[in-house]
């Protein structure tokens, strides 16, 4: 019995020892596991921290990339705008230049018109023959820059052949008392053809050679020729307005001369108007 009791005590002791051993192992293992878990958790926390920082970094980089993209887009748009504005500015510049050219052109035309208006109004402002001739002389002197002028009108020789007689001379007295044959070049030729003769002033050889001969036309007939022998020192070439003035003289001076000649035959304005009564 005693033996049995001892055995039971031994078993209990053994069991208790094993339990303690188990518990000790259990707790040790538990502690080790816990420590491992803690270490693992620390590692995870560190990794999370690392990833969070990386994430922030990536996000900020992404944001900065977007900003750069935005800026590049804006730059491109601005470049396009700049090109468009530059093109508009070029267009505006061209347009402005064209307006400026047009303005200058209009200024020139206005001057030309003013000259022709003044010339025309002066030409018809008098009915006195000598005044008409003087106005023609003044027109050529003041507007064209003529320094020496002769005005020839049609006449007839003993054989009733047409010729030209000088009726007015300014600074070219050598023509007084002379006549010019109807066909002789260049003055008579202008009378015969009705076509103006205008040379380059520089090509003139001597002072008695005409630089311009303008026919005086009336109803399709040549009734005389205006001759410019010399130009003023400062006038070296003819310009557009000179040609216009020559045309005006060719078409209007003859009627002014003939009108003044007819008016001279009447004794008053009333007498000159008499002919209209029968109309």
């Amino acid at each position, binding site marked *: 019995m005693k033996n049995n009791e001892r055995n039971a005590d031994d078993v209990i002791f053994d069991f208790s020892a094993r339990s303690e051993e188990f518990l000790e192992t259990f707790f040790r293992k538990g502690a080790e596991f816990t420590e491992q878990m803690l270490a693992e958790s620390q590692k995870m926390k560190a990794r999370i921290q690392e990833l969070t920082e990386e994430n922030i970094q990536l996000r900020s980089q992404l944001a900065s990339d977007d900003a750069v993209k935005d800026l590049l887009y804006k730059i491109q748009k601005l470049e396009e705008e700049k090109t468009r504005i530059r093109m508009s500015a070029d267009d505006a510049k061209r347009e402005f230049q064209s307006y400026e050219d047009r303005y200058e052109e209009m200024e020139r035309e206005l*001057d030309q018109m003013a000259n022709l208006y003044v010339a025309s109004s002066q030409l018809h402002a008098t009915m006195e023959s000598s005044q008409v001739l003087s106005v023609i002389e003044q027109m050529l002197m003041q507007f064209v820059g003529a320094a020496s002028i002769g005005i020839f009108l049609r006449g007839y020789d003993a054989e009733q052949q047409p010729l030209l007689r000088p009726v007015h001379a300014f600074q070219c007295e050598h023509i007084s008392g002379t006549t010019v044959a109807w066909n002789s070049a260049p003055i008579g030729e202008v009378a015969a053809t009705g076509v103006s003769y205008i040379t380059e002033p520089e090509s003139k050889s001597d002072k008695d050679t005409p630089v311009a001969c303008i026919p005086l036309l009336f109803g399709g007939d040549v009734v005389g020729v205006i001759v410019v022998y010399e130009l*003023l020192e400062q006038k070296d070439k003819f310009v557009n307005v000179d040609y216009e003035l020559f045309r005006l003289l060719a078409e209007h001076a003859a009627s002014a001369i003939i009108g003044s000649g007819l008016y001279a035959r009447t004794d008053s304005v009333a007498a000159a108007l008499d002919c209209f009564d029968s109309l």
Partner: protein
Amino acid sequence: MAQYTCLIVEDSPMMRQLIVFALGRIRNLKVVEADDGVDGLKKLASGKFDLVITDINMPIMDGLKLVKRIRSDAVHKDVPIMIITTEGAAEDRQRALQLGANEYVTKPIQAPQVISKVKELLKIQ
């Protein structure tokens, strides 16, 4: 309302008309016309002028005598004078400028040139 008054002394009515026409393009400029130097002096004495434009070759009193008279006149000696003439020789120009003319323009005139010189003398923009 006219701010400036200009006296044009020129014996050729045609030339006067042409100058008046050209100056008509300048705002606020009133123009008074005279036939020759003596007429010019009379008109000058009757008012205040900002500019005198004169020809040289004129009857009774020529343009150079007129310039001389204006420059010796206590009231008008400072009035700018522009000569418009057929005389294109360098010595004529020099003489006129020596007598006191401020500008010398030869005929035939170009309206824009006259306008620009008048504006310069009147200090108009």
